[in-house]
Structures are given as structure tokens and as C-alpha cells.
């Protein structure tokens, strides 16, 4: 039985959090509401509560969105990024997954030392070597190519380690049975190991996607030609153009966020588990 004072405390807490969340979310609400307005309307509404309310749906409601999609390369940037993410997810699962399996199950020379090395590599911040990556890619003439963008991003010590931690708990006898069946180890990996480890495959895929979608520094270095840009770099080139209106800017950043929202709502359980487990595992 909860006492009266506890109940009152609960309501005060709820109201406090509600007020906090309203202040916290005002930029997002403002962004959404004004992405449907002309610049004249945005300025006119600025001083009233209408600044946080979208206009009445009607003719020209999606005007900003339509003009961005038809007059700029924006849709192409979005598709580019989806394409890069798909390649990187596939290559990443194959390369890091195979390595993780080797480090978990195959007794090959120096295995424990490789594991230690992979662990140590995780503490090197990428910003340290990004200049050298840029120099290397430039020297071999791969600037402004998809390959030049993708190659340095495939291998990921963190994902190798993640795969290893999951594969290490797989039963050994299935592997031995597969060997008796003359099932080739590589085939066994793709037809048995990966399907048995759907959770880690999903986790790695989701985090790879978010990483590729949100990355800014590396694509801004590699890509200069406007055909190949990713969504983040493309958004910057569109919004820094003087002809882009404020409403269109807000429409662009809303659209760039939509795929991430879809991913988060589909995989919220995996993401939250991933986030909290990094905390509890290392903390």
C-alpha cells in the first residue's frame, strides 16, 4: 500500500519530468513543425506558440520536401549511403566473423596473442590514423572512389572481438560432426555458425549501419565528387548553399534522420541491450 505522501511525490516527479522533457524536446518539435513552412511563415510564427505547431495540411504542405527531392541530388546521397552500408555490412560480417570464429574455435599458432592484440587495438582512436588513411588512399589513386571509401572501414577489432565472444560458447561437437561429414569448414561457417548466431549478426549489422549512416569525417575526406557523397556530407553541401531556404534545411535534416528512426524502432531491443551491456560488461 502506497501512502498518500508517496503518491503526491510521484505526481510531482511526473510533472517535473514532463516540464523537463518539453524543454528538452523543443528543438526537435521546432524542426518538425517548421520543415513544412515557407521562410516567411517561419519568421512570422517565431514569436508565437505557432512556432511549435505545423501548418494546417493542404496545398504545398510538403513543398520543402518535394523541392529538395526534385531539385537536389539528395535522394541519390541517401541511396549511396544505403548502398555503402549494405556492402560494409556484408564484408564486415564475412571478414570479422571469420576472424572471430578462428580466434574462438580453431587452434592455430599464436591464437591467444592475436586475441590480446585485437583487444589492444580497440583503444587506438581512429582520428590518430585518419591522415595516413587519407594519404594512402590518395597515393594509390582511390580518392573519390567507392573502393577507397570502403576498404579501410571493413575490418573492425571491436566486431571481431564481439563475434569471438559469441562463437566461443557454441558447442564443439557440431563442428566435429560437420568435419566427419566432409563438410568444408568455410561452408560450415556460413550454413551453420552464422545462422546459429543470429543475434550477434543482427547487432553487428545494426551498429555498422548506424556507423556508416552517421559518419562524417572519413566520407568528407574521400569524396569530393558530388555523385558519390553520403547523406551526411550531402546534407552539408545542400544546406550550406545560399539558395536553400531555412524550411528546406529543416526538411533535409528531418529526412536524413528518418532511416535511423526506422532502424531504432525495429531494433530498439538489440540496441538498448547492446548499449547497456557495454556498460555492465566493462563497468
Amino acid at each position: 500500500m502506497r501512502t498518500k505522501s508517496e503518491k503526491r511525490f510521484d505526481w510531482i516527479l511526473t510533472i517535473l519530468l514532463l516540464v523537463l522533457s518539453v524543454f528538452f524536446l523543443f528543438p526537435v518539435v521546432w524542426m518538425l513543425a517548421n520543415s513544412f513552412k515557407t521562410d516567411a511563415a517561419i519568421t512570422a510564427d517565431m514569436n508565437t506558440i505557432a512556432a511549435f505547431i505545423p501548418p494546417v495540411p493542404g496545398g504545398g504542405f510538403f513543398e520543402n520536401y518535394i523541392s529538395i527531392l526534385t531539385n537536389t541530388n539528395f535522394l541519390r546521397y541517401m541511396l549511396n549511403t544505403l548502398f555503402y552500408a549494405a556492402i560494409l555490412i556484408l564484408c564486415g560480417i564475412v571478414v570479422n566473423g571469420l576472424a572471430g570464429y578462428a580466434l574462438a574455435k580453431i587452434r592455430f599458432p599464436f591464437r591467444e596473442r592475436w586475441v590480446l592484440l585485437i583487444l589492444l587495438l580497440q583503444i587506438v582512436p581512429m582520428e590518430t590514423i585518419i591522415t595516413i588513411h587519407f594519404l594512402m588512399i590518395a597515393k594509390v589513386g582511390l580518392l573519390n572512389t567507392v573502393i577507397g571509401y570502403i576498404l579501410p572501414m571493413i575490418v573492425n577489432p571491436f566486431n571481431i572481438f564481439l563475434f569471438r565472444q559469441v562463437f566461443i560458447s557454441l558447442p564443439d561437437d557440431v563442428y566435429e560432426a560437420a568435419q566427419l561429414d566432409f563438410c568444408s569448414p568455410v561452408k560450415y561457417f556460413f550454413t551453420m555458425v552464422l545462422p546459429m548466431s543470429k543475434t550477434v549478426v543482427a547487432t553487428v549489422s545494426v551498429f555498422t549501419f548506424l556507423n556508416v549512416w552517421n559518419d562524417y569525417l572519413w566520407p568528407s575526406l574521400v569524396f569530393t565528387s558530388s555523385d558519390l557523397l553520403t547523406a551526411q556530407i550531402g546534407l552539408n553541401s545542400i544546406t550550406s548553399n545560399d539558395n536553400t531556404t531555412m524550411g528546406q534545411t529543416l526538411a533535409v535534416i528531418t529526412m536524413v534522420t528518418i532511416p535511423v528512426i526506422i532502424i531504432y524502432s525495429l531494433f530498439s531491443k538489440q540496441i538498448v541491450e547492446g548499449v547497456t551491456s557495454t556498460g555492465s560488461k566493462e563497468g
Partner: protein
Amino acid sequence: MNRKKSNSLLGMTFFGPALVLLTIFLFVPMVLTLLFSFTDYFALNPDLTRFVGLGNYFKIFEDELFVQSFFNTVGFVLIILPCQGLGALGLALLINKVTHCKKYFKVAFFVPVVMSLAVVSTLWMQIYSPEGILNTLLKNVGITPQPFIHSAKQALPSIAVMSVWQGVGYQMIIFLGGLQAINPGLYEAAEMDHASAWQRFKDITLPELKPLCVFVFITVTIGAFRMIVQPMVMTGGGPSHSTYTMVYNIYETGTVNWEIGLASTMAIVFAAFVMILTIIQTILTRDKEEKHADKK
């Protein structure tokens, strides 16, 4: 014997692709960065490269711009760390306690995490603009319009506030996970002893969360140390280099000015800081695991 041989062949087949890529894109760049940091390598004129020993290391600490970018980065960390760390902890404690609309609160404070740094930076450029929504709101409560990112004094704190806004939900989720993992039996026992709410917080919640706090605070510090996208999009490092960070300096020195030698030296100094923080984190959090093992 044969089995062993086939195992090492198989191991290398599986590990090989990753090893090749690790070598080309991690080991070699790391070694090159270290080597270049002792040279005056200028990528537009590589033939003139000379070995300069520790010269670059003295040079960058005499370079006003590098020193400024270093202190900007430290300043940014000093604002972010208490705001984001304690903010996330506070939010998690409140949301853990509340019984109404719990799910809404979790989502609401997590929303900005979903947005990328480029998106958030673009949005807040509009919000911070001289005639923007924030200044309009401030005017209504009687505060004169502020220049925010357009003044050397306010630009860094403005970007820091925005970054806290963007990131705090992530750490909040980590803390919520930690709070839910605390054994409820501890609280029940405290209740039997008639412990006050404050005592329960001080003697159960805080000690149980301490390892997680160490983890979160150091992760936030490292994240803040690596800042570059926000000033790149919003201010270009200005006004008068007030938002020029260490990584921004490395980036421009290396890829715009092509001074690979100098950029490598800065990168080594930067990496040293981040790695020291990571090692501290590992030591502090490992301590806790051993203590836990002792208890059992």
C-alpha cells in the same frame, strides 16, 4: 601432427583476410604515424623529408594554435563531463523512480541520440542564429539576444551545451540498465532497517553504481576529446579559433596543409591522452571485478 598442420592452415584461412586488412589499415598507419612524427614530411614535396628527432614535439607545444586547440579541447571536456555525466545520472534516477509515462520519458530524452552530429549541428545553427528561435524565447523572458556561436566567448560553451543535449540520453540508458541490475533485496533489507530515502541512495544506489559511473565518465571524456564534427559544420573552428579542437587541428594540418610530419606528431600526442584515459578506465573497472570476485 597432420591435424595440427591443417588447423594452422585453416586458422590462417579464416583469420587471414582480417589480418591483411588490419595490417594495411591499422598496423602500418600506426607505425607510419609514429615514424612521420619524427620527420618534417610535407606531402607536396616528399623528397625534401628530413629526420628531425623530437623537433616536432617541441615545435607543436610552442605553436600557439596547437596550444589553443589543446586548451579548447580541455575546456570542452570540462563543460561536457559534469553536465553530461551528472545529467544522465540524474535523469536515470528520476525516470527509474517515476511510475507514470515511464516509457515516454525514456524515449523523449533518447530522441537526440538518434540524430547524427551533422544533423544536430545544422539544426542548432538555426536555433542559435541571432534572430533564431532561442533568442526569441529568451527575449520573451527578458534576456537580451545572445550571439552564441558567433562570438569567440560563447561559441565553445554553446557547442558544448548542444553536445550534452545530443548525447545525454545515451548515458541515461546505460545508467537505467545499471539501476535495474541492482539487487532489490538490498532495498528490502534497508526498508526493514527503516533507512531513509537518502540513506538508501547513499549506501546502496551510489556504491552499486560507482563502477558504472567510472565507465560512463571516462567514456564521455574520451568522446569529448575526439570532438570535431560540430565545429566543422557550425563554426569552421572560429570565431578566432575559439572552437578549434585538437582533432580539427590534426585534420587540417594533415589533409589541408599536407604537413604530414606535424599532423602525425599532434596525432601521437592526442592518441597518448586517449590511451592513458582508456588504461585508467580499464584499471579502475577491473578493480571492481576483482573485488566482486573476493566477495563471492
